[in-house]
């Protein structure tokens, strides 16, 4: 039995990790009061940059780092436009996605059909020896471990540290935060860049480990699902983590459904993650008072000291 189930569970982890990165990063961004809808664009730039560097250098470390940097640079465009030039966050986020999809196709033009060896697996000594659980939980590539660590760190920093308090203050009431001397613009810029590098890592995981190939438009809406997950998680990183695994699970189970003898056209099964997103959004939005309590009060509002 475990020979059958473990591989499926392992692929669920692989499918969920990109969502974990992107959603956890966006939690931080939105906590600081910024709605960056460009997650899809940052992810795909991260994916293509990581893959290109991976193919050129054959170094997994360099590939991962450059994926994160790619996402961060893309996020910088967003930060500059929305924070310095006070552009509308929704429109800028959309532009970032359109631009990212185009730019990634341009960069990736020469890398279609190339292959990358994938990320090496790392086992945690001793723990990996545990039967079944060991191979399921303790033998993974570095990014899977990193995604779990990131979620722990984000939860800890946001809730237990001074830095987290500042970020939340900026997101809840930017004028109050400004008046006690915090730089709203720089706090938000930091969060946006962090979110961008996380989205870049999510994209890098897709092209380096999940496929590992470069295909135009390969994020296929995962950035948008990550955005939905943030709402689903009511802006908590650890809930976003479980949400990501729920969605990863749905994605993988629909792939295996036909193998298990479910006779439905593949297209209907492929709709499941998107349908699930809508259903989840309906379920959590229905309770509007709870939504209002959890959402950062200044989410999506531009800040200028003179208003």
């Amino acid at each position, binding site marked *: 039995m475990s020979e059958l189930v473990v591989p499926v569970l392992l692929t669920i982890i692989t499918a969920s990790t990109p969502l974990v990165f992107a959603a956890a990063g966006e939690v931080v961004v939105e906590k600081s009061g910024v709605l960056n809808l460009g997650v899809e664009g940052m992810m795909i730039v991260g994916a293509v940059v990581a893959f290109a560097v991976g193919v050129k250098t054959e170094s997994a470390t360099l590939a991962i780092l450059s994926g994160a940097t790619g996402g961060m640079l893309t996020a910088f465009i967003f930060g500059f*436009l929305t924070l310095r030039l006070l552009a509308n966050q929704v429109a800028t986020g959309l532009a970032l996605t359109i631009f990212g999809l185009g730019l990634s196709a341009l960069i990736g033009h020469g890398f279609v059909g190339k292959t990358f060896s994938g990320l090496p697996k790392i086992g945690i000594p001793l723990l990996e020896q545990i039967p079944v659980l060991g191979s399921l939980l303790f033998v993974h590539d570095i990014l899977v471990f990193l995604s779990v660590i990131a979620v722990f760190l984000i939860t800890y920093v946001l809730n237990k540290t001074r830095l987290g308090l500042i970020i939340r203050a900026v997101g809840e009431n930017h004028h109050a935060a400004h008046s006690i001397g915090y730089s709203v613009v720089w706090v938000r810029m930091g969060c946006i860049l962090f979110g961008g590098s996380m989205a870049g890592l999510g994209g890098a995981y897709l092209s380096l480990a999940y496929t590992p190939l470069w295909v135009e438009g390969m994020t296929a*809406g995962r950035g948008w699902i990550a955005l939905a997950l943030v709402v689903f998680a009511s802006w908590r990183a650890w809930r976003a983590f479980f949400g990501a695994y729920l969605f990863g699970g749905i994605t993988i189970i629909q792939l295996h459904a036909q193998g298990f003898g479910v006779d439905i056209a593949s297209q209907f099964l492929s709709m499941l993650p998107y349908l699930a997103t809508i259903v989840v959004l309906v379920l959590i939005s229905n309770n509007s008072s709870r939504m209002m309590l959890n959402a950062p009060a200044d989410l999506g509002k531009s800040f200028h000291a003179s208003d």
Partner: protein
Amino acid sequence: MIRLELRGQVSERMVYCSPFFAVIMTLLSGMLIFSFLGVNPTQAIITFFVEPISSIDGIAELCVKATPLVLIAIGLSFCFKANIWNIGAEGQLTIGALAGGGLCLLFFNSSSQFLMPGMLIFGILGGMAWAGIPAFLKIRFGTNEILTSLMLTYIGLLILSYLIHGPWKDPEGQNFPESRLFQDAALLPIILDETRLHLGWIITLICVPVAWMLMTYHLIGFQIRVMGMAPMASNFAGFRGKNIIWISFLISGGLAGLAGTIEVAGPIGQIIPVISPGYGFTAIIVAFLGRLHPIGCLLSGLLMALTYLGGDNAQIELNLPNAVTGVFQGMLLFFLLASDVLVRYRIRIVSFKNKHRNIG
């Protein structure tokens, strides 16, 4: 040191100047990118923006490409003016194309003159139905329409893929995932001989003044504008927010559906796996660049159509990847959003010494 200073009033002049700034900046950065790609920038700009429209055929082709963009952008303008973010026009276009094209496939023997108008109406209804879902969910449950309309786009594209690989596949098509070719009665008539320019362009040109009237002189347009600019005032005036959400979603969905049907009944002539190269998303840029005004949408739609033609031409002539088009479109929106800062703020250059004196 450069500082932004809040204007007392929105600058009307800047509203209309900033699209031109944006276009100029995009061209300059485009030249930079081209030289980076190892192509002579002037040559590339000519290939991209001049060659495609240097013949009658090219101009006709420009209008063919602009038709869906302008139609969708006009619809989206209603939404965006009301601060409603329908970004699922691509899905509404797809479902509209399936509804209109489906009618044709249902009556594939018909040569009735009512078939084509019927298809257009079905297309509008299909788009409306698909846009009605996020509208309903927003009104009934308060769900975020950005995410639902986008998720519905992916679902719509999968429905298209299912139909085209399954029930709607051409029985004589050697197993290609394509529908039957539409019969002549289902095709939009060509209005300029020897080109692909079809009746859809005329429909678009009619929609522009109608939408302008609706937006400027009709109560609906007024309510939409008030709700977008001052939701509280709109409430106090007794405008029904729910109705405004419904109307703006239905207008934009209907126009996107119409655009979808026009695509399949016009230049394509059958239902194929890829009906639109992202018109629904590009139309978002068109709407903003056109200042959410129907006439502006017409002009910016033509410009954006040119980036598609230019991308194709650059691929053939200069061997550049087609994706350059997407980069251009994204940059254009970036520069537009950036120059829009001048609408509400003015730039002041202050020396460090005076910096503190100027505050307050």
